[in-house]
């Protein structure tokens, strides 16, 4: 691999050829603000927040789409660069609701984070603001187009990750919008509710409806796990607050799926708290299933199976194991049947 030497803020660093200036900075722990950039999507260079000054280059190039070149001298924090970023943030904030206190994204909003860092007031530019209806007609995704900053990541996610392309820009200039065709609400479009758009939105324009009001980012712990729906084996993070799962978010390191998920994986987790859960053992008494404690239930089973085995032989007992349970549990189940009961009468439903 060919390596290049470039100077960032007076510091010489080496990066592999083909690295963007943004990646070169991030590899060296030099912070650069970005809104439209995402490593898993193609770069648009649209938000312009990542601009830097590069010796010999006209204007302020965006670092996310500028390739590092041998001997390049980059400045990432000089007053001119910081002022340009601040102005861009002021422009975005001027056309963005300031209801951060009640916004689901609070604490995880890139715009808020940078606005704070750059001392944006939100008062310099007073004028027209978008005023579009909020799209809340579906059970999964809450879409507030007024919070959209036109970074276009949701569009790319819908196209590049999901291959669905139900989202795109419409209109132009200040009137540009992001949404399904005819700006229909999600549920009237062909949306599959995979939620990839939500997973890349840097602001509160797209949020998981189920999680609204359920927890702030700093209160939530994330547990990576494997999806229980279908054989693809997607991984994601269960978001847990106070011992309760409040939602699912993408884990970009998921080996099979990256940030992609489907409607079931991302939004079907409320199944855990279904009213139909059995939460205590039940024993049939006088033809009716009634609650019992564990000892009673397990003793009853041990006794009954023991009797049947004794009377009719181990092959009079069978088990259906489960394609929903873990490998370890399936292992235990077959070991139970083979070693404890003494039969090979074990199968499971979906062995095709």
């Amino acid at each position, binding site marked *: 691999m060919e390596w290049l030497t470039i100077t960032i803020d007076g510091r010489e660093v080496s990066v592999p050829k083909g690295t963007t200036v943004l990646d070169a900075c991030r590899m060296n722990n030099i912070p650069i603000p970005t809104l439209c950039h995402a490593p898993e999507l193609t770069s648009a260079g649209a938000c312009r927040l990542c601009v830097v000054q590069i010796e010999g280059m006209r204007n302020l190039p965006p670092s996310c789409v500028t390739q590092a070149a041998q001997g390049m001298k980059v400045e990432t924090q000089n007053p001119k660069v910081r002022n340009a970023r601040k102005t861009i943030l002021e422009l975005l904030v001027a056309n963005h609701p300031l209801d951060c206190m009640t916004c689901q994204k609070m604490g995880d909003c890139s715009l808020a984070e940078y606005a704070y860092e750059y001392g944006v007031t939100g008062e310099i530019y007073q004028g027209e603001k978008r005023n579009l209806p909020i799209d809340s007609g579906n059970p999964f995704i809450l879409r507030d187009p007024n919070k959209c900053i036109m970074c276009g990541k949701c569009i790319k996610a819908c196209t590049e990750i999901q291959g669905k392309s139900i989202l795109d820009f419409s209109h132009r200039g200040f009137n540009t919008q992001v949404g399904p065709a005819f700006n229909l609400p999600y549920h009237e479009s062909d949306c599959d509710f995979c939620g990839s758009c939500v997973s890349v939105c840097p602001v509160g324009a797209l949020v998981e409806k189920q999680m609204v009001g359920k927890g702030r980012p700093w209160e939530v712990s994330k547990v990576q796990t*494997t999806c229980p*729906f279908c054989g693809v084996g997607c991984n994601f993070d269960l978001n847990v607050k106070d011992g309760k799962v409040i939602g699912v978010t993408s884990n970009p390191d998921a080996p099979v799926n990256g940030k992609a998920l489907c409607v079931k994986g991302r939004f079907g*987790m409320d199944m*855990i708290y279904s009213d139909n859960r059995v939460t205590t053992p039940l024993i049939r008494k006088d033809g009716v299933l009634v609650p019992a404690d564990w000892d009673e239930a397990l003793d009853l089973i041990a006794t009954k199976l023991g009797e049947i085995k004794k009377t009719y032989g181990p092959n009079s007992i069978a088990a259906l194991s489960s394609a929903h349970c873990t490998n370890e549990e*399936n292992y235990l189940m077959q070991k139970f049947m083979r070693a404890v009961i003494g039969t*090979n009468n074990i199968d499971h*439903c979906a062995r095709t």
Partner: protein
Amino acid sequence: MAGLATSFGSGAMTNSINEIPNTKVMFVIGSNATEAHPVIGTKMKQALAKGAKLIVVDPRRIDLAERSDVWLRLRPGTDIALINGIMNIIIANGWEDRAFIEARTEGYEKVKETVQKYTPEVVSQVTGVPVEQLVEAAKLYATAETAQIFYTLGITEHTCGTDNVMSLANLAMLTGNIGKESSGVNPMRGQNNVQGACDMGALPDVYPGYQKVANPEVQAKFEAAWGVPLDPNPGFMIPDMFEAAVSKDLRALYVLGEDPVITDADANHVRKGLKALDFLVVQEIFLSETAKLADVVLPGASYAEKTGTFSNTERRVQMVNQAIKPIGNAKTDGEIICELATRMGYPFEYQSSEEVMQEIAKLTPIFAGITHQRLGTQGLQWPVPHAEHPGTKFLHEGKFNRGLGQFVAIDNQLPAELPDEKYPFLLSTGRKLSHYNVFTQHSPSLENYSPEELAEINPTDAKRLKLKEGEVVQVSSRRGELKTKIIITERVPVGMVFMTLHYFDSPTNVLTNGAFDKVTKTYEYKVCGVQISKLS
């Protein structure tokens, strides 16, 4: 899986999911991937975005058919004829990979002879697919740089399911599209851990890792490990169990996390079998239809409440990590089994699921190098023969697991039950995106989003029967009847009705046929005759 095991020596997806986006040609047969395996569907769409060609074989105009280069709308149950026809065209045009056939396979001549009678014209007549489309598909697939076959239950859920699979294996070997990156034969497993349940020996004839119970060496190994004598005779498969229950050969059944009353074909027959038992234990997280029949119901824990591993369809063993405590008084299924074993006089004294995995690794060569720690966040694809092995991305490179690939000559066979005068519609079943089997109905948001069955029926049929969109109709077969709403759509051809298997209120499997494949004993969910009648 038995089909692939016969042909290649190993019954699993030959390639990895992340090889899909780089495939040049995809041959998708009997698989509605964008709905049943949504994220695999997205990978296929990513491949299309990179210029891949797509051949779809399906009677329904599924989403992938809309995106395909060639869509072969075959009559249900004519898959073998179609594949033989494509092989006939490939051989006739000299598109076969002679070097591959020579070096890597056996039994080719027999297949060549068999497919001779499957001329394009004959096949077109049998399948209903125009000759030009057959030729186009054959050319695309045979001449591709890399090509993968994908199939699911549309291939296997037939009485000739195993033969269907072996036909596809023939096709792949004929063209050399196997044993390399982005080329192979890929059965996509339906349920999250169906691969793992098989891997772990939840099958009547094998121990974990497909080690035969009938093999004395294997038996000796497990007897030594477990310290008890073991039975070398294979046990009952599912359909046998219900038969045996009715005949009183089977007295007790322990059902773990399944709902056969809903999910098995010919539900009424299943119900009869369960009712005949002396003792039924169901361990489940919901009070399922099967649980309602049980003598004892044990509350298990959901995926969020336990630690362990799932094996996905590409053989990747991945961690399931506990996020919350079991709800209410529930326990993890592992814990319950251990307690029961202990109470029955064989103490299962595992401190954690990790310890169970250590035992699995010790006894199972394909899992030998797996520990929870190694799985980490990325998992490992078996075979993982030792602790340093990085896992296996695709199978059969350079050599098939069974040595030479086995061509098997196969003739077309008709489904066990076809529409007739009394039951004039062909019922086919499958999945839809918003649900997964029956238990997503317990998710309030998914249930709210997609609350009821919408049986698909062609506009021509709807017009003839004077049915309106959203109308509730009665669907009946020789085995049962149900009521369902309908949706009128060109997705299904004339004469077909399509239903999913997700809804308690329209339990499709009261209709389906309990006939099954002779090898795997998989039910023929995909084809049976039904009648549709207007209510009132």
